[in-house]
């Protein structure tokens, strides 16, 4: 399982949280939960869907905490997300890529997850639905809204 999915799962989590260190921590926590839950895994979903569900929930929980922390410190979450991308030594993109990364990071957490799975990972809506527990119709609407926001955000800076 580790051999087959860890690298792909890392890129999934990295897309959601941007930072390499945070993605590494979340992946570690994900696999601790995976090993604990493995005896009870009934195979209702595919192993991949199951792993993505646990990792996505971990990443969303991390983003929720980040948001609460920023609010309690009276800091701007968008500014913090931009700082993470600007200061990331493991970001290798050009200016256009940086703008795209910042636009993705400015989306609400769940919308960001949907956008990343659909746009970057090219996951079918049905599979995203199994991962998130959201209906296909709602996912399509969420993806459309996210894509519009990103388009506006990227074009604003051009």
């Amino acid at each position, binding site marked *: 399982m580790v051999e087959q999915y860890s690298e792909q799962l890392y890129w999934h989590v990295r897309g959601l949280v941007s930072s390499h260190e945070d993605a590494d921590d979340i992946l570690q926590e994900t696999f*601790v939960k995976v090993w604990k839950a493995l005896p009870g895994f009934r195979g209702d979903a595919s192993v991949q869907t199951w792993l993505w569900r646990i990792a996505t929930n971990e990443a969303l929980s991390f983003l929720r905490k980040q948001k609460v*922390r920023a609010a309690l410190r009276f800091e701007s979450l968008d500014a913090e997300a931009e700082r993470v991308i600007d200061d990331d030594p493991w970001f290798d993109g050009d200016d256009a890529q940086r703008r795209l990364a910042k636009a993705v990071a400015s989306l609400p957490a769940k919308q960001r997850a949907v956008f990343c799975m659909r746009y970057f990972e090219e996951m079918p809506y049905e599979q995203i639905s199994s991962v998130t527990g959201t209906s296909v119709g709602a996912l399509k609407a969420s993806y459309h809204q996210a894509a519009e926001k990103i388009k506006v955000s990227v074009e604003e800076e051009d």
Partner: protein
Amino acid sequence: MSKKIEYKVPDGYFENLKTRLSAIPAQEKQPSRIQKFTPYLALAACFAVAVLVGNLVLNRTATPAASDEEIIEYLVNSDITLAQIVDCLIVNE
């Protein structure tokens, strides 16, 4: 618009990651340091509670001070949502 964001990882990261993730089940089976020291911790906790209660009895006006950061981390690790924080702020205004 690009279909990929160019993130990179440290050299040899994925080999190291696979080794670490594969080692988790063995680590989980071993009793952790905390589990090993549980009886001693329980004893220390009893002592701490006794000291705390004693302190409270002797000095009823004393209040434990928590720093802002400690309070923030406590709230972050609870299940509180941003909406609930905003509600609290509105109520306390």
